[in-house]
């Protein structure tokens, strides 16, 4: 009897081959993703991608340029020389982590064997990454000056370019709230998108299509509903973060509202995109779990972007999570004006629009098909 039930269940479970494939694909993709993240791919330990270190050379001397060249020659660093203003702006906008400023009198200090005028300007939200870069620079300094006391000669002052103020939240809190909120939103809209499959099973989709409604109306109607739910869910999460953890959500209300709307648009279009690519619930479950976990891992919902390997940082932009989380950092941490956050909002809207355009033919092919 048990065998008969087992045999029947295997037959039923394996009937949806695409669904089964997706179920197996999920762990394979996750293993691959984390293997890359932790540098475990290949027999030899892979060389880390160099971190970008901005350099401001105010001394412009032979000594400072020689030392910068030595830093650049290190495999772990990629030196980018900039003016101080530009470097600070890049850090302030979250494009780079830290800049090393070689103060005037660097060469003289080297000659006199006195304290070196070095300053590190960094983003305190990426303190761990900044400290790691600094450790590399310190190593180079010790090597260059030949003795362990060299460090005592370095006046390596660390200054955060983003000033912590009383109304500014801890970057960890911003990461936790933004990362989790966007990831959970993706799961919610995937479930709402699944409502289209329910309509197909119950026959209401058939009735909808016999009325003067076009398939695209159904798709956009579902997306609209998912967007409203997304806006409510995101708002509720931020209100909770405000009440429970004091996240200052009224710091820049206009930017916050516009960002919530942009994220909700992108995420809800993702929901209808997902459901348009599948034919069954099993396929939807497999596909949504794979894509959501992938986007969340790559986009910084699980681990902050700055702590990810270089290649993953490069592909982070494909994820809705990335643009959403960075947008929230722009508002709460970097406190950028609305105009500087708008490009991220436009990217989110662009992602959403792209997904809708792809979804329409897929929806007609996979969902609006009756026998």
């Amino acid at each position: 009897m048990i065998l008969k039930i087992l045999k029947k269940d295997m037959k039923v479970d394996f009937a949806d081959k695409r669904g089964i494939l997706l179920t197996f694909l999920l762990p394979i993709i996750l293993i691959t993703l984390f293997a890359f993240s932790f540098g475990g791919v290949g027999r030899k330990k892979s060389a880390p991608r160099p971190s970008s270190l901005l350099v401001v050379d105010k001394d412009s001397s032979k000594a400072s340029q020689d030392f910068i060249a030595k830093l650049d020659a290190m495999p772990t660093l990629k030196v980018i020389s900039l003016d101080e203003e530009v470097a600070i702006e890049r850090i302030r906008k979250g494009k780079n982590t830290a800049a090393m400023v070689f103060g005037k009198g660097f060469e003289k200090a080297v000659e006199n064997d006195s304290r070196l005028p070095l300053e590190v300007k960094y983003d305190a939200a990426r303190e761990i990454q900044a400290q790691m870069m600094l450790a590399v620079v310190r190593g180079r300094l010790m090597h260059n000056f030949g003795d362990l006391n060299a460090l005592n000669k370095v006046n390596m002052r660390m200054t955060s370019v983003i000033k912590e103020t009383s109304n500014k939240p801890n970057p960890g809190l911003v990461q936790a709230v933004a990362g989790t909120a966007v990831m959970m939103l993706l799961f919610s809209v995937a479930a709402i998108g699944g409502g289209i499959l329910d309509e197909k099973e119950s026959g209401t989709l058939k009735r909808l299509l016999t009325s003067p409604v076009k398939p695209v109306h159904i798709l956009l109607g579902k997306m609209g509903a998912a967007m409203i739910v997304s806006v409510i869910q995101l708002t509720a999460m931020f209100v909770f973060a405000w009440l429970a953890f004091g996240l200052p959500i009224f710091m820049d209300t206009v930017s916050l509202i516009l960002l919530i709307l942009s994220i909700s648009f992108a995420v809800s279009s993702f929901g209808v995109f997902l459901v348009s690519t599948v034919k069954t619930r099993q396929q939807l479950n497999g596909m949504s779990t794979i894509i959501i976990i992938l986007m969340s891992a790559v986009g910084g919902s699980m681990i902050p972007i700055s702590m990810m390997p270089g290649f993953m940082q490069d592909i982070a932009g494909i994820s809705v999570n990335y643009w959403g989380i960075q947008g929230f950092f722009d508002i709460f941490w970097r406190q950028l004006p609305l105009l500087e956050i708008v490009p991220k909002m436009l990217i989110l809207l662009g992602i959403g629009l792209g997904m809708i355009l792809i979804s329409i033919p897929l929806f007609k092919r996979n969902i609006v098909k009756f026998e």
Partner: protein
Amino acid sequence: MIQVQNLSKSFQSIKAVDNVNFTISKGEIFGLLGPNGAGKSTTLNIMSTLLKSDAGRILIEGEEIKPNSEACKRLIGVVPQEISLYDELSAYENLLFWGNLYGIPSKELKESIDETLELIGLLDRKKDLIKTYSGGMKRRINIAASLLHKPKILLMDEPTVGIDPQSRNRIFEVVETLNKQGMTIVYTTHYMEEVERLCNRIAIIDSGKIIAQGTQRELQELVQTKENIQLEFDFLSTDQVAKLSQLLPYKMIQKENQLIIESSIKELSSIITASNQLGLAINDIQLQKVNLETIFLSLTGKQLRD
């Protein structure tokens, strides 16, 4: 009013509709009778613009219908086989939603909802959630949702599946009332008693093909008999049936130990004599008046519920 011409539709290697032709006059109730999988729903799906045919065409009032044609959708009401309603909404909310899709002005729609609910006998339950309704009541609301835009043609795909006789009767009354009001109705079913009661003309469909069509009288004439005699034997082999058919000049259909002979009561004695001659022990004899069930059996050699 409706002309279905050379209609064909295949799904992979299965020919679901195979060169189907029929014509429906204005104000007629036209029955499409056939077993499950005969091609009734596919024909109806093409008529309701949900499906595109591989070949052939459908004309309504001389105009060829195109897939997703809005003008055509406004002309037609579709009662799907499934109960296509939202369980979490009340009957009124469901009807309001479905009616709104046709752009009916609010006041007109509300009047139409009340009229329709009265017609189906559920006006007093309009505020109740669909999930609290019985199967028969849901079926009635399922019909109501197709009537709000006052279509000229109503396509009903097995509208009485899985309901009690009382609810079924109520639906028959609704169909008859709508027809009296001038609505043309296409009614698919595999229950012959439904088409016998409701339909002016009938097309019998099997394996995607129309095997006969006409009024009930015309179909009866087609099988050229008024009665069938059903005999049940202890044992009946195909050899014995072959031998019996040499003795009796009637069409015979064997169903295991049963034999249906297209004949009349006057010939019963000769049938019994022939059976005795072959040593066949008769257990039971039944006289069947010719109905659509027996016509279907006669034409296809199988029963409607097969």
